[in-house]
């Protein structure tokens, strides 16, 4: 609004994204996931990579913030900053003490968690729940920040488990909430392709990457996920993969091109049925004339 340009004013700097950014990493450490069942040692490698990546995030700017969560089959926990007082960490080598604190706290809390885990192995991880918790955490940080400050928030999910359709509703609620809160969701798939989470990335403008080989996990993380969303446009990153937004029908769980949707509960069916299996509504039969030609086309 200042129309008067003082001679002493310098032209603005080329780069300036001087905003604080908060990164919440959701690490799937469920020992039941397929990848870890085959080879439990991978977890150490993943944890190391994630910690190094997290420290790189903190290294970017002094005011950057970080939280790490571990996601299991029954519940999710914050492992950094963990519950209780921060660890009193003294330097042992040339590492920056904040980084040492991140590493020690994370590893300590994670091992505590893994040892308390009982042996019943469930393959499914509660990723949606973990993301919801991350959103709560972000909402709190947004609430308590000083007025006028800007906080860019994002969530990075690192997981080797598949996405299960049973959490579909939870996932969608999380994605839409994140979209509303302007929280970006990034997903780094370690083992299987995750079509549901990919949709989430697309909805929230995040990035999705299926790591081709686990060995180079840290490099993949640093290259793709380290740049914050405002910086991403300045870099050439893997182009967004076209997301398959087709719906799966409720009856056979198959992706369909054309389907029938219940007007009451929006359940999706691949064939016409006179009664909705979800809400038990009885449907009016469509006029035969309208139906026949359409049905033919489906078979094409």
């Amino acid at each position, binding site marked *: 609004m200042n129309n008067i340009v003082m001679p002493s004013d310098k032209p603005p700097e080329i780069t*300036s*994204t001087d905003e604080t950014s908060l990164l919440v990493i959701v690490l799937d450490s469920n020992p039941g996931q397929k990848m870890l069942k085959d080879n439990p040692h991978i977890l150490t490698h993943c944890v190391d990579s994630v910690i190094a990546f997290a420290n790189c995030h903190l290294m*970017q700017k*002094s005011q950057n913030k970080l939280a790490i969560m571990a996601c299991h089959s029954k519940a999710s926990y914050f492992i950094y900053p963990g519950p209780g007082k921060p660890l009193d960490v003294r330097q042992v080598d040339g590492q*920056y*003490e904040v980084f040492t604190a991140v590493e020690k706290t994370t590893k300590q809390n994670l091992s505590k968690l893994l040892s308390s885990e009982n042996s019943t192995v469930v393959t499914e991880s509660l990723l949606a729940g973990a993301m919801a918790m991350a959103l709560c955490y972000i909402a709190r940080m947004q609430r*308590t920040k000083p007025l006028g400050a800007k906080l860019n928030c994002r969530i990075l999910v690192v997981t080797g488990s598949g996405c299960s359709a049973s959490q579909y509703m939870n996932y969608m609620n999380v994605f839409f909430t994140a979209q509303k809160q302007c929280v970006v969701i990034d997903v780094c798939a370690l083992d299987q392709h995750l079509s549901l989470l990919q949709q989430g990335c697309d909805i929230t403008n995040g990035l999705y990457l299926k790591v081709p080989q686990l060995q180079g996990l840290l490099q993949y993380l640093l290259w793709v996920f380290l740049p914050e969303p405002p910086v991403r446009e300045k870099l050439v990153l893997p182009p967004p993969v076209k997301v398959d937004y087709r719906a799966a029908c409720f009856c056979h769980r198959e992706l369909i091109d054309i389907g029938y949707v219940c007007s009451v509960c929006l359940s999706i069916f691949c064939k016409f049925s006179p009664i909705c299996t979800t809400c038990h509504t009885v449907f009016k039969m469509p006029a035969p004339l309208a139906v026949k030609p359409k049905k033919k086309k489906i078979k094409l």
Partner: protein
Amino acid sequence: MADNGLSSSNHESTLIKPTNLECKNLYDYLKTRPSNVLERLYNHPTICLAVYRELPELARQYVIRILFVEQPVPQAVVASWGSQAFSKEHVYVSKVLTELAVWQEAAIPGGLLGWILSPTFKRNLKVALLGGGKAWSMSSALEADSKARDVTFLDAYSLERWECVLHYMVGSQQQEGISADAIVRRKSGIFLLQYLDTVEERGLDLVECLTFLFQLSFSTLGKDYSTEGMSPGLLVFLQHLREFGLVYQRKRKAGRFYPTRLALNITCTQNKGVTNIEEDSPKGYIIVETNYRVYAYTDSNLQVALIGLFTDLMYRFPNLVVGVITRESVRQAFRGGITADQIIGYLKQHAHPQMLQVDNRQPLPPTVVDQIKLWEMERNRLTYNEGVLYSQFLSQADFNVLKEYAQSNGSLIWCNKEKRTLVINKHAHDDVKKFWKRYSKGN
């Protein structure tokens, strides 16, 4: 009032020597250092970390990408990382990285040119990030402090120390206060740079001191650190920092010290616009209204005095002062050597959260900001031009010829027909002189 103001403006100029005026941030400071000093500096993980954080956004990404690569990366490949629309930024970033000797050119078999990180920088940044190497000098193990100090105490302490230093520097009670407190953080940076220049004269090692300073900036607020194993020089330096309020020590020989908020912010002089996200950071207290009234919720005498420098104080309550910004009050501040930008910067920096709520980029009413700037411009009605006086022309014709020539190439500053005198821009003097010689020869 006037001579008082004059004296304080003198202070301002003696405080900051022109050589260092340019060095507003770490980048500018390091750029001017010779490469062998840089190489020595990069031997310390702390400095690598600090330099890394001062790099532009894109540069930081580049460094991270080649941090774990052992061979040089072709320049063309690096250029392809940035998107087309930001190629200018890429060029700028490459320049910065080269100037700071963070990366260097290297030939790749096949005749291509590539970039490779400076080996020292790479090694020590990795140490800072992943561990290894020697511990920092101040991190020896300590037993718990029986009289541990909390953050609020340290904040109060550092503020008090700074006030002392400022009062000392000014020699008077409050006159100079504003330019210092207004931008304490930036100022403390500049001030320290100034101090660092004298460090070597005092027989201290520059690299050692710088390293320590950066270590300090990476320490945690409210945590105590050990002085064990520090060199005698460094201990002297620590005492100096203690004087400035950058660290707190109960006793000279206490064996431990606490860094204060000032120390933490010493290296991020560049991003002074950043608002701290911490829940315990000090809050702003000033409200400025479009009717030029200033409400300051404070009970600190120093703050009241500062406000009083450029406002007419109207009311004073236990926790609130009300003043009004007038042309006279602002001009008085100008006469004292305070600039409009400093006043605006001060008001902005301490703006009440309520004002930030409306628009955090520009919390002050634009009319007030513009008016303060206008009042300042009012004082700068004279413009200075270096010129050469031509006089004693023999004839009006000669005068006219020269006047027209000077006018045609835009170097005429002033002329008087009656007295036949001209003032010509100094840069054009040679040219005009030649013309005159040619002209007089022709005649």
